[in-house]
Structure formats: structure tokens, C-alpha cells
């Protein structure tokens, strides 16, 4: 569905993302893993042509046989939001502070040609309902909601027009683990219902192990390893992948360590 071919992103002479090729199939939960500064976010921004103006993308990104990088900005605008949508880490900043949640829903639907106000409101309430929020949220301002609620609203907004690809950039990083877990559950539920693909950017292995079906590992702007989840997790080829997997805390190792401690005492 989406295939990135030999994409490089440069700032002047410096390559920030180097010759990356990836392809995402329909219904994939594609995890993009790597430490900060490895170019994950830039890569995701390039897909929606959201890069800052001082960075140039080279190569090609094919979305359904069309090169995204060659589209006009009007064509790009119709794709953004309806076919491709984003959820970011900073839930506080994801909403314009002086507009209600409802106004956000209204505006985004209007921008994509939904001019029936009743339908708009119904869509919005359905979307909120699908992430476990009730009608009262519709009239609220962003600062009246908790972090977990806001992030759920962002997901509702992002999935409002049933996109083909959702780019989730560190969406649980700023949340506590319980809220984060709920967000992931809602996302998984919605994906099962509608079958969109997710590009899930993270540095946390736990959700990757649980939800992803394919994984790409990025380091210093390059994809060092990519493939099916089981393959990458069980038989990591690259030294960096091994290092990452070993660095991730797992429950059994923690338990083992504490048992040892208990024995020593």
C-alpha cells in the first residue's frame, strides 16, 4: 500500500535519513523502533510531506502507485487526514487551546467536504464513542480533559475519516502506563474493526512485542533490520538490534533478579 524507496532526507550536505526503503501492507501494524535522533520521526513526516522547509527529501514514496513526493500541495491536502493521518506524542499540544473538541472535529470534516452539519456531529460522536469517550467531551476545551482522554480524542480525530494509514509517533510515551495501555487497546480494537495500517514509532519494546506484526529497526538514519516480528525478535541479525532487545526490561528477568536478591538476603 505504501512503499518507501531509497528515501534520503538531508539538511544541507548532512544526511539525516539515509537510503531507507520500507513497505507497509494493508492492515499491518508496522513498528519502527530506534533511539531518539535515529530519524524515525523525520521518516514519518516525509510520508505526509510534513518536513520542515529546510530539509529536503529525495527518493520516492509510493502510496497506491502514486508518488507522494511528486503530488501538488492541493492533492497532498486531500490525502492528509482522509487517507493518511497522524497522532503525536504531545497530547497537550495536539489541540488548539481556544477551540473546543467539537470545533476541531467540525473543521477537519469540513476541510474534507462533509458539509452536512448533522452528519458531522454524528460522525464526531461516533468517533468519540469508539474510543470510549462520551458526548460531554464534545463541548469541552482541550485543557479540561486529562492526558489519556486527550490522546484518545487525537486517535478519534485521526481515525474520523477512516484513513488507510495511521502514523502514531510515540503516542504512549508521555502517558502513564495504565492510560498508555488503554490507548493501545483502543487502537488495536479499532484496527481490528476497520483494518487500517499503523506505522507505530516507538522506543518501547513492550507494545511492539504485543501488537506489531512487522518491525523495522533504525539507527543513525538507516534501517539496520526489518522483517516479521517473530523473525526480528527471535533471530536478530544486527548487533544493534540484539543490543536493543537485551536492553529492554522484561518481567521474568526482573523477577529472576529480585529472587536472587531475596536469596542473598
Amino acid at each position, binding site marked *: 500500500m505504501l512503499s518507501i524507496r531509497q528515501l534520503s532526507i538531508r539538511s544541507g550536505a548532512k544526511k539525516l535519513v539515509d537510503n531507507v526503503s520500507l513497505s507497509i501492507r494493508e492492515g499491518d501494524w508496522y513498528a519502527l523502533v530506534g533511539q531518539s535522533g535515529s530519524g524515525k520521526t523525520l521518516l514519518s513526516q516525509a510520508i505526509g510531506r510534513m518536513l520542515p522547509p529546510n530539509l529536503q527529501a529525495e527518493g520516492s514514496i509510493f502510496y497506491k502507485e502514486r508518488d507522494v513526493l511528486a503530488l501538488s500541495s492541493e492533492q497532498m491536502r486531500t490525502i492528509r487526514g482522509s487517507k*493518511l493521518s*497522524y497522532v503525536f506524542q504531545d497530547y497537550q499540544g495536539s489541540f488548539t487551546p481556544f477551540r473546543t473538541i467539537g470545533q476541531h472535529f467540525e473543521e477537519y470534516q469540513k476541510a474534507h467536504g462533509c458539509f452536512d452539519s448533522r452528519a458531522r456531529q454524528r460522525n464526531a460522536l461516533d468517533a468519540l464513542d469508539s474510543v470510549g469517550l462520551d458526548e460531554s467531551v464534545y463541548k469541552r476545551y482541550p485543557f479540561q480533559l486529562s492526558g489519556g482522554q486527550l490522546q484518545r480524542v487525537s486517535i478519534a480525530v485521526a481515525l474520523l475519516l477512516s484513513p488507510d494509514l495511521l502514523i502514531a509517533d510515540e503516542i504512549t510515551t508521555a502517558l502513564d502506563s495504565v492510560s498508555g495501555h488503554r490507548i493501545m487497546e483502543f487502537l488495536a480494537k479499532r484496527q481490528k474493526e476497520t483494518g487500517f495500517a499503523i506505522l507505530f514509532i516507538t522506543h518501547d519494546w513492550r507494545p511492539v512485542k504485543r501488537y506489531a506484526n512487522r518491525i523495522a529497526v533504525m539507527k543513525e538514519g538507516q534501517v539496520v533490520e526489518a522483517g516479521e516480528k517473530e523473525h526480528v525478535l527471535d533471530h536478530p541479525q544486527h548487533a544493534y538490534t540484539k543490543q536493543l532487545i537485551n536492553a529492554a526490561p522484561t518481567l521474568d528477568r526482573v523477577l529472576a533478579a529480585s529472587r536472587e536478591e531475596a536469596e542473598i538476603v
Partner: protein
Amino acid sequence: MKGWSLPWPKANKRRWLGAVAWLCVLLVGIVAIYAFFVLRHDPTLTNLDHRLQGGSLQHPLGTDQLGRDVLTRLLLGGQQTIGYSLLALTVSLVIGIPFGLISGFRRGLVDRIFMRIADGFLAFPDTIVAIVLSGLLGAGIGNLVLAIVIVKWVSYARLVRSTVLAESQKDYVLIARTNGLSPGKIMRKHLFPHIAGHVLVLASLDLGKVILLISAFSYIGLGAQPPTPEWGAMLNDARPYFQSKPEFMIYPGLAIVVTVLLTNMLGDYLRDRFDVKKEVQS
């Protein structure tokens, strides 16, 4: 997050100051508008039989050297001075805000070109521009307003740009873009309300300066032309009679001082209210 409410005084030590400033500005406004309805004299009608009279029931503040009623001229002068100041500021805002919005939002090449244009305008001091313009186009209040606009719009463009540069990095602008909103819509609906407060503060602080500028240029004869009643021009008219009738200079002078003081008070108050000290001071 502050509510989007009218900037009425908040509960603090200086609330009275804000309230006083608002009330007085309201009062000046009412007086200036109401003057239309209570005028008993033609402000430009000369009557040499009644020249340089003291206060009387007929002429509460007396008459000037041509026998015109001073109170009438003072009230209408307020309309002229404040009106043209507001006009100059409004035109500056209308040019400066979109300029700054586009420059800050687009960034890159557009921003660089726009800002070099702005720098070019910034190089002109207001006095020089006003004198040159009145030399080229003739003295008159219209040209004076033009000169003020040429000098003033840049500071609004720069203020708006700096705010927009910071704001447009935030995620809500990114999200609005990822949801397919057009740049025009993002600027109008998502960025403009952020900058409105800052711009309002700067504009109210500038109002006093512009009033002074208009009065000053009218005083030296480059602004309002006689017989237009304008405070600066009235000061100039009264100059030869300073020794015999000092009050004719004091009335318009006082009017200018009080109005400028009030707009500054209001500006200070708004600045505290919107808490944008650093942007305004730069």
C-alpha cells in the same frame, strides 16, 4: 490556559488602574463622538468681533484669535487627532498582520524575502519619512497618516512573525496540517487568535506615540492644515498669543497629555493582562 474573555480587570492590586483606564478611554470616546450632537458653534466660523475672549456662558473656554469657539474646536480636534491615529494604526495592522503571519508560517525563502523588505522599511525614521512625504506630496494629514503607516507596520509584522514562528512549531498546527487544512485556514483560525492579544497590547501602547506624532507634525505645519481643528494645529495657532492668553495653548496641550497618558495606562494594563512583556519591549 486563559479563557477567551474580555480583558476586564482581574482581582489584583492594580485592578483599579485598569478600570480607571478603561473608563477614561470610554469617556474620551464618548466625548469625542457626542461632540457632534452638542455643537453650538461652527468650528471654522470666524468672528473677529469676538476674538480672544475669556470664558463665558456662550463660549465656556473662550474664543481664539479668529473668534472661533475653543471648546468646539477642542472636541472636534479630539476626533481628528484620535481618529487619524486610529486610522494609521488600523492600516498598519491590516498590512502588518498578514505580512507577519505569512512570513512566520511559510518560513524559508518567503520569510527571508519578507523580512528583508521589512528591514528596508525599518531603516526609515518616522520624522524623516513624514518630512520627505510632505515635501513630495504636499503637507496634509493624509500624507502624515501614510508616513506613519510606512514606519509602523513593520513592528507589527515583526511581532506577529516572531509569535507565529514559535506557535507554528507546536503540534496543534502540525495536526491541523496533517488533517488537511489549508494554510490560510490555519493562519486565520488557529494562529491569529494567539497573536491578537499581543498585537492589541502593542497597538494600544503605540496609540499614544502616534497621537503625539500627529500632534507634533500638525504643530510644525506638516499635518492638519488650517482651518481644520486639530490639537497640534491649535497649539501652533495659539503660539503668538502665548503671553497674553496662555490658556489657548494649555487647553489643547492638556488634551494631548491626558489622552496620551490614558492610552499608555491602558497599554500598560493590557500588557500586564496578556503578559507579553518581552515581546513588546524588544
